[in-house]
């Protein structure tokens, strides 16, 4: 089933390529229909997923090249499940929002479908080479999407995106090779293996763990992006077409956090435990820094982009909190951020399609002209601010409350990001949507079409559903998260903090929280 899930979009791309170029009117609807297929498969996967199970499910394995120990090995667990579902959901929606793409539309749809295969594959891969292949292959369609269908400085942004990520993953490849070789030297048969499950049994010295952790973490930190590796993101977002931004923020960034969670924590537990302060500092700096920088951005898209830096800082903090709540928060925040930021980018795109500008200063008082759009924007803005009852809160709250027992000082600083989020989001909303309606062009704006409403509504519904009943996801992630924590506890002397007197928390915690 998972192979099917990975290959369905690719098949779709093949189908699209067979559509004659002159049948332009067919390309986009067909693309949407074809990207709905993986959504269906993902739905089936979601339904047949066993709730109480922490290990990988629906595992499929085919040997690809025995001597190197590489195989086509797929599996899904609670950590990847939500991301896969999110991916398959965002594709039809962002394709549907791509009416504005008229130039080389067929190629666009194909690039999107290839991208989808890559993304799903990355989340499901249980072989490190397979993972790396998908991880890298994603760059090409995304690069094309930014570079061909992007804004004015698209080439600069696309190249920066590609190079930055490629440089990041270079050392990842070296580290992966190192693991396989290590497997060869430790296993009885002396065989190389890139199999994730096999590599989990390796005994890696502390020093080696540090190095390998560093290599993995660098690749993922750039993808997340963690401060100070984030500067490719605003450029990429500003230049990318709407669909590109949606997927970039919605899914691509999650590859980084997913990678940290999936590989760094389990393969290098010792290094994880000792490097927690480093990652936590970067995460917290990212939270505050991203928010501070977002406040004064003159470009709406850039503002949302920097907000991603801030939000993903929460995810990373949750991961390195190494507590059940923190990890669950990280997993669900991954999905949440995809929904809300995806929707925000869709909205900015819809605004851009109408006004051909993203500058905040060009807008003003739009709410009286386009109330529906304003309503959706405000809804998503509040979701992103972390309003309880909407999904963003669930993730942030779990992360904050979950990271306090282990990282009190960091959690306190991170919590301040919540304040800043309200400032940049609401200020932006105020300048764009409220006040008197300004400008002739703004006076002629049209509100959301039924189609646009249909694109945004499922996202809004999910934002609400996950905000009120996150159990739909948490029930499935909890066992996998526990499995990771168990592993860390077994392989290191780390103990997940249990509730207790605050004096103890502060004594054992790595910082000396406020007061």
């Amino acid at each position: 089933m998972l192979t099917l899930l990975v290959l369905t979009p690719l098949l779709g791309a093949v189908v699209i390529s067979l559509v004659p170029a002159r049948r332009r009117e067919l390309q986009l609807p067909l693309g949407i229909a074809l990207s709905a297929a993986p959504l269906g498969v993902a739905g089936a996967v979601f339904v047949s997923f066993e709730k109480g199970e922490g290990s990988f499910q629906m595992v499929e394995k085919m040997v690809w090249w025995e001597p190197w120990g590489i195989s086509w090995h797929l599996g899904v667990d609670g950590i990847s499940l939500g991301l896969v579902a999110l991916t398959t959901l965002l594709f039809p929606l962002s394709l549907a929002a791509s009416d504005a793409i008229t130039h080389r539309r067929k190629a666009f749809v194909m690039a999107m479908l290839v991208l989808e295969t890559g993304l799903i594959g990355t989340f499901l891969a249980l072989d490190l080479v397979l993972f790396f292949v998908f991880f890298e292959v994603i760059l090409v369609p995304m690069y094309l999407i930014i570079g061909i269908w992007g804004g004015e400085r698209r080439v600069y942004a696309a190249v920066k995106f590609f190079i930055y990520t490629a440089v990041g993953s270079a050392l990842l490849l070296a580290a992966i090779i190192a693991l396989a070789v290590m497997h060869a030297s430790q296993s009885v048969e002396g065989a190389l293996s890139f199999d994730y499950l096999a590599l989990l049994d390796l005994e890696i010295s502390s020093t080696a763990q540090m190095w390998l952790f560093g290599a993995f973490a660098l690749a993922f930190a750039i993808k997340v992006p963690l401060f100070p590796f984030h500067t490719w993101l605003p450029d990429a977002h500003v230049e990318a077409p709407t669909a590109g931004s949606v997927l970039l923020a919605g899914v691509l960034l999650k590859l980084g956090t997913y990678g940290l969670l999936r590989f760094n924590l389990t393969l290098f537990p010792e290094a994880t435990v000792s490097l927690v302060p480093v990652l936590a500092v970067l995460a917290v700096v990212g939270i505050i820094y991203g928010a501070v920088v977002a406040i004064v951005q003159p470009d709406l898209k850039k503002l949302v982009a920097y907000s991603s830096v801030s939000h993903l800082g929460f995810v990373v903090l949750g991961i390195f909190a190494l507590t059940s709540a923190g990890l669950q928060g990280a997993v669900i925040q991954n999905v949440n951020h995809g929904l809300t930021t995806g929707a925000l980018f869709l909205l900015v795109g819809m605004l851009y399609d109408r006004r051909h500008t993203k500058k905040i200063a060009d807008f003003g008082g739009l709410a009286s002209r386009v109330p529906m759009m304003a309503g959706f924007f405000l809804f998503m803005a509040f979701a992103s601010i972390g309003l309880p009852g909407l999904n963003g809160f669930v993730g942030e709250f779990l992360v904050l409350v979950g990271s306090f027992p282990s990282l009190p000082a960091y959690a306190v600083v991170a919590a301040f990001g919540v304040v800043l989020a309200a400032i940049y989001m609401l200020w932006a909303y105020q300048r764009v949507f409220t006040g008197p309606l300004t400008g002739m062009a703004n006076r002629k704006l049209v509100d959301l079409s039924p189609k646009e409403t249909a694109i945004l509504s499922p996202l809004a519904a999910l934002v609400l559903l996950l905000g009120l009943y996150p159990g739909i996801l948490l029930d499935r992630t909890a066992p996998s998260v526990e499995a990771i924590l168990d592993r860390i506890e077994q392989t290191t002397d780390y103990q997940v903090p249990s509730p207790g007197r605050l004096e103890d928390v502060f004594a054992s915690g790595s910082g000396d929280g406020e007061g």
Partner: protein
Amino acid sequence: MIELPTEALWLVIAFPLGGALLLHFAGRWLGEPLAGYLASAASLAALAVAAVAAVPFFTGEGHPSQSLLWEWMPAVGASFEISWDPLSALMTLVVTGVGSLIHIYSVGYMHGDPRFARFFTYLNLFTASMLTLVLAGNYAMLFVGWELVGLCSYLLISFWFTRPSAASAGKKAFVVNRIGDFGFLIALMLIFSTFGTLSYTGVFDRAAQELSGWAPTIIGLMLAAGAVGKSAQIPLYVWLPDAMEGPTPVSALIHAATMVTAGVYVIARSAPIFELAPVASGVVAAVGAITALWAATIAIGQSDIKRVLAYSTISQLGYMFLAVGATAYVAGVFHLMTHAFFKALLFLAAGSVIHAMGGRQDMEEMGGLRKAMPVTFVTMGVGVVAIAGIPPLAGFWSKDEILSVVFNQGGWYTALWLIGLITALLTAFYMFRQFVMVFLGKPRWPEGVTPHESPRSMTVPLVILAILSVAGGLVNTPFRLGLEHFLEPSFEGVRLGHPPEGVGLVLVLAALAVGAGVVGAAMAFFAYHRPPEAWRRFQSGFGKLWGWWENAYGVDDAYGAMLVTPGRRLSEQTAFGVDMKVVDGAVNGVAWLVQATGRLIRPAQSGLVRQYGLWFGLGLVALLIWILVRGVA
């Protein structure tokens, strides 16, 4: 009598929530006034359910109970669970009761507004949120309500969003509240890491054994930080005056009667924690007392009818803080309730005046409205007397109880008591000043304004609230401690502050409080029941002081200069300096470095064969030397 199980209490939230949803999707189709009636019905339905459910507490047979709706975030012990005890019952009744009246009032007040239905959507949503807050069975769900009321406050303050000031005020309210929430969040983190849960029962049952040293103090202070934001206390009160940009019913409901009291509610709710943290309690009391005085002085200098009430609200909230800080939880909650009545009444009456004056809010343009608006005149009069603490109206009982409990605490609380007493005098002064300026004297109406009494839908709620303001205080008098008895199950095991034992002392304290009120009222009457020139002379007698009051001590400007502007500059410098030049510059610098290296070695590629030969030869020699050195060594 029907026994309503706790399991059914979700209905209390569901009615207004359902109303909000219905109005959201069908509001425009329902139109005016149907949407308003529907929203009012939803609110009334919630009131009915709550009333029925609260009966056991009145009869003294009820016990606090919980009912789990659904699991929310099990990892942090957060779930949607309703906790039903006298405290939440009382809050529910106040919220739905006053709320319903304001709903009804709004049908008249919002008449003709193009976004009539949307207003009621928000109003219903607010009711649902506030009920979520008070019915929550754990801190997480409380926080849901806490933030959702903030959202509604934001939406309603900037309801007329085309006015830049309204849009800005809404944002300000939310952001300032968020600063308080920052503390609240930390409190939640502290609580979770101590107890492993956020549920009230889980926390309070074990509070005494798990919390020691400075832990309860810091938790209490952090909770108080959240409360300071929501209840507009120093230093976070600045959002509330601006919040008056919202429609007046909103000011009445959210920014007087209900939402702003959430802070008081939280502290009262967390009494078992504050019990262990006398320092935190003391801070709360001090903040409350200082805020009460501070805001009261500002209120004196205001000429906007709503701003007076806004600062008055801040001041009265200060009283409530003072009460809960002095562990007089019952007194605090009592004042919360009476304040809800008379402040809602005052706001609605002010709204009625504004309505009549065609949207004008400057009291200097009013005067002599007594005849034009008799109902409003009388009801507002009741409210003014009530807030001034003149017996036997509601305000007297609650305020007196607070002051006497604070006095009884002794020590430095005596100073707080004194502040409270002065505030009582000031309260009476600025309220009577307002009353006189608005209703008495000669009309100073601008041309074209012909005030008229408001429609029935507005006056009826005024009358009902006036009755409540008169009689509401009787639920808890020194003669019959009804409320204290009623709330007992909620404060089980908590030492409550009490008035002094001796009847004589009680009477002296009461007399002092009443005296302060009467003096203040009399001063206002004499200073302002005169032609405007005379007041101005009176005001200028205060010298610079009056300017400070008028200008609210310039706190907004100071915050602007000390926080907002530097913050923005910091943000700009980070974004356009650090981020673009340093961080991104480093990235581009690496790329530049690679290219520069290339340019550095490019001259080697001169195209000259002999030079190529030289490189070849040099490479050869270098290699041979290396081989030989290694080989021989």
